[in-house]
């Protein structure tokens, strides 16, 4: 059976929380982060608890200019993880990014099951994203930390934590508050 493609292309067309420019920028970062470890295409595992799904990741290798523009490894990993995490949430769970989650310190995203307009967020959940170039243990450690952090108080929204492991070809996710 043909494996589904991780939907990294034209994300702004489906996710109202992403503008075209931002989606392209995240995709560039993902290409650089993926290319650091692999040659396309690659099979990634999307793991949601005990359920695993394989997905094919296809990307255009970045040229030197693109690599140079994303020379800051931390930025590339963070923004590349946004692209892969949002695409994985779309493919695995049918979730779409509907709004940036502005905080003091950057932005993750709010996501919803239907591609709803961004001014009604009653049914949304927070998408918490992290990326790493390290091993599977680190992917799981980050996921555990995110889950513990989200569980520790009543003051958090329901969330989906997603950690992207570029080197180990793994996207690990977990819902918090059991709302899915």
């Amino acid at each position, binding site marked *: 059976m043909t494996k589904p493609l991780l939907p990294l292309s034209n994300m702004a067309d489906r996710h*109202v*929380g*992403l*503008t075209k*420019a*931002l989606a392209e*920028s995240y995709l560039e970062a993902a290409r650089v982060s993926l290319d650091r470890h692999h040659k396309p295409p690659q099979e990634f595992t999307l793991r949601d608890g005990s359920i695993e799904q394989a997905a094919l990741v296809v990307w255009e290798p970045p040229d030197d200019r693109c690599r140079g523009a994303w020379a800051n490894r*931390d*930025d590339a990993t*963070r923004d590349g993880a946004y692209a892969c995490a949002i695409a994985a949430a779309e493919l695995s769970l049918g979730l779409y990014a509907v*709004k*940036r*989650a*502005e*905080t*003091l*310190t*950057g*932005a993750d995203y*709010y996501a919803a099951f239907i591609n709803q*307009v*961004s*001014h*009604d*967020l*009653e049914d*949304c959940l927070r998408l918490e994203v*992290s990326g790493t*170039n*390290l*091993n599977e*243990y*680190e992917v799981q*450690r980050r996921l555990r*930390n*995110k889950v*513990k*952090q989200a569980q*520790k*108080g*009543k*003051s*958090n*929204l329901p969330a989906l934590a997603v950690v992207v492991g570029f080197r180990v070809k793994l996207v690990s996710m977990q819902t918090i508050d059991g709302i899915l």
Partner: protein
Amino acid sequence: MHHSRSEKYASQAEAASRNGDKDRAAELYRLAAEEEASALSALDPSKTRTLGITAVSAASLWFKVGMFRQVERVACQWLATDYLPDFAISQLQTILQTAWNEILFRESGIEFVKGEVLVSVAGGKIVTGAAPLEFVHRKVKEVRNIFYRTIEMLLNQPFRRRGLPNADIQEQFRPWLLQAPPGSYQFAVRVQKPAQMSLFPDASPEIEEVTQKLLQIVDAAAQETHEELENIVPDPEYRNGFLRLTRNLAPTGKTFNRLEIKSATDLEARPIVFLPESRQGINKTLREERKATEEPTELKEEQLTGILRALHLDKDWIELHPDDGEQSVRIIQTGDVIDDIVGPMVNQRVIVDVAVRPDGTYLYRDIQSEE
């Protein structure tokens, strides 16, 4: 309509910021904040989650452009209502406290390097908003010591084994303890910008990044494998020193069972979490490093727990009052001990790894704070 415009401006601001166009980014964030504030005033109050998210978003956007009075206005206006859900109350309080700190700093004329480190501890004897003074004092010192080490590394200074940082560094890079938003127990630390940057020629860009660098180091030290730490801290002496300093931050589970450290102002704000198992991970790395460099020995290895009563590092010994003994014991060959790691441990509970000679003499291997 306002929401969509705000989204568009915020996304463009992020792109401008990434391209290094700070002025354009600030202008776009301001426009995004204005649109978000307009959207907020038009919302149906029964949509509490939407209201909460939008209020937090508006306050955050005002914060990003440094318009702290606007932050205050939005936060206070909505905190005074009964409409907000818990998550939004908590987030708005955090933004408001941080904005108040910023207002005070501006008025004081003190300049800080970029970023702020927020440390929070929880569990055990820690209660909401309060912690034992001794404990807090020690944690503050430990964070300060990591800051100094990071500054020294950025200034390419040789690794210091004895004494305090040199006078110039202490005088010019003064760490400040700030009020933190309410939490389990939290404190925040910032480093004052040197008044005489000329004392550190060529170091200006690096020094601006000291808080970010500290967070990268602590994050890498918290990971099970330390390959990332090797990239960030290529010097093995510094790397070993950072691992030891970071280990002391981690809980053993007795006084507290969780410590989080994160940037309160920088872009990458995900907290670095230390649990008791984090300490075990660092211990494992340090043990492996030690075994790789030590001569193999037939001596028995032991672990002593007790109060560190005295030390004389120039004479190569420390003295411990063990839990199960009436008299203090002296542990020799402490060549590896570093002043600013062991200093905060005096008169505190510690765990000391030793090798025991046949005549009962204890040889030093490692020391860590028990809590």
